[in-house]
């Protein structure tokens, strides 16, 4: 049995951890880009971003003031036994984590009336039913400066490889200096409109060196990295070689009439944390 208390406590810890400790793969990518960057100003900015990570971790100050809309990917083992309401338990964990971690509450209850809920809930929860007895919880606090740069392109099925590359590059150019580059670009290709967007976001939970799980999409991701880093957007828009830290692509089947391409951009402060709970 996995209890509500276990779930809430796990989620609360993940919210705090993700917001204070930058993922090791992202820190490594920042350090690697600092080694490669030749613009003095951009090197200086990348060094400060790394210093920011150190201060956040040691002094327990959130990496960024936008501690995000809390996105939760819940992989629920179909043989797991869960006590109580899972969604309620996750939201309770988010509320506790944001209160105890001194994280910003950035959620309004209604998109037009815009009254803050004061708890950073509701979380955006995506459930997946998977084999087994585990419950895997991944928390991705998503800042909205970068979320606002999300794109969905419903391309023609005959548009082909180049059109996919150009669409994704267009999304990166449109984000420009606004959404805290260097970026990690999550891409979802295929499915329907909703699934493509889901995959683009889920791709951000993979390590920044992931590229893709399929050879032809790894090639695509590498090409995007090379071309994206020539856009001269640079760290925080100051120019230079460092525009992208990573491009991750997830793909799936699609319809004969379409080629959906979704782009979900993350700022350099790509934050996520996960935990497995086991049904005893």
């Amino acid at each position, binding site marked *: 049995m996995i209890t509500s208390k276990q779930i809430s406590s796990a989620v609360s810890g993940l919210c705090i951890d993700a917001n204070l400790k930058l993922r090791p793969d992202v820190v490594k990518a920042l350090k690697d880009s600092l080694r490669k960057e030749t613009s003095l*100003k951009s090197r200086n900015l990348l060094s*400060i971003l790394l210093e920011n990570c150190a201060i956040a971790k040691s002094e327990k*100050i959130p990496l*960024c*003031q936008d*501690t995000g809309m809390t996105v939760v990917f819940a992989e629920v083992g179909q043989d797991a036994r869960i006590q109580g309401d899972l969604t309620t338990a996750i939201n309770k964990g988010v509320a506790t984590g944001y209160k105890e971690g001194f994280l*910003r509450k950035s959620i309004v209850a209604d998109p037009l009336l815009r009254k803050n809920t004061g708890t950073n809930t509701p979380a955006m929860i995506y459930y997946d039913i998977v084999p087994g007895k585990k419950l895997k919880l991944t928390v991705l606090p998503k800042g909205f400066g970068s979320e606002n740069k999300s794109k969905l392109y419903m391309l023609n099925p005959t548009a082909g490889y180049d059109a996919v590359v150009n669409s994704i590059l267009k999304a990166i150019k449109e984000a420009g*200096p606004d959404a805290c580059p260097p970026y990690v670009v999550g891409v979802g290709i295929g499915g329907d409109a909703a699934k493509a967007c889901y995959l683009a976001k889920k791709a951000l939970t993979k390590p920044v060196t992931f590229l893709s799980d399929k050879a032809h999409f790894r090639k695509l991701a590498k090409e995007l990295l090379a071309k994206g880093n020539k856009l001269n957007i640079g760290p925080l828009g100051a120019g230079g070689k460092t525009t992208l830290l990573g491009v991750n692509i997830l793909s799936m089947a699609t319809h004969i009439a379409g080629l959906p391409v979704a782009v979900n951009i993350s700022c350099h402060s790509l934050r996520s944390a996960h935990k497995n709970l086991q049904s005893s």
Partner: protein
Amino acid sequence: MKTIQLPIDEKTIKTLKAGEMALLSGKLITGRDQAHLRFAGAIKKGKKLPVNIKGQTIYYVGPTPAKAGEVIGSCGPTTSRRMDAFSPLLIKKGLTTMIGKGGRSKETIAAIKKHKGIYFMTLGGAGAYLSKRVISAKVIAYPELGPEAVFELEVRDFPVITAIDSKGKNIF
């Protein structure tokens, strides 16, 4: 690197060139989407603003809550472009200095040029680092907006890059 006292006088504004880095010290106010919406609404209705914006510096930020014994939480800039719907009006009414991140609209750039204002970018996503440069913080308007309330901050050696100078020259 130049060190600048806030509020910035007209003469100093004119010396700053796009791309130039500087360290700011002194008092400024904060404001983001909802504060801008309210400021613009009040101006259009001919009502008095709750804060003086003439010659003022505004920083686009919604900080995380301060822990006990701390001045402020994480406090990096939010995306400036969302304020572009309101900035030309505020500049016309005397606002001189803006701090945020990313690019601005043609209209905002034109207003900066016309009224000899300045737009600085600071370090997006470095909210923990920047919190160390804030020495006092208090809410001075719209407390009901929570993280979007207008604060008065006093900063010391707050790092910025001149992104749009008073001649309208733009680094992006």
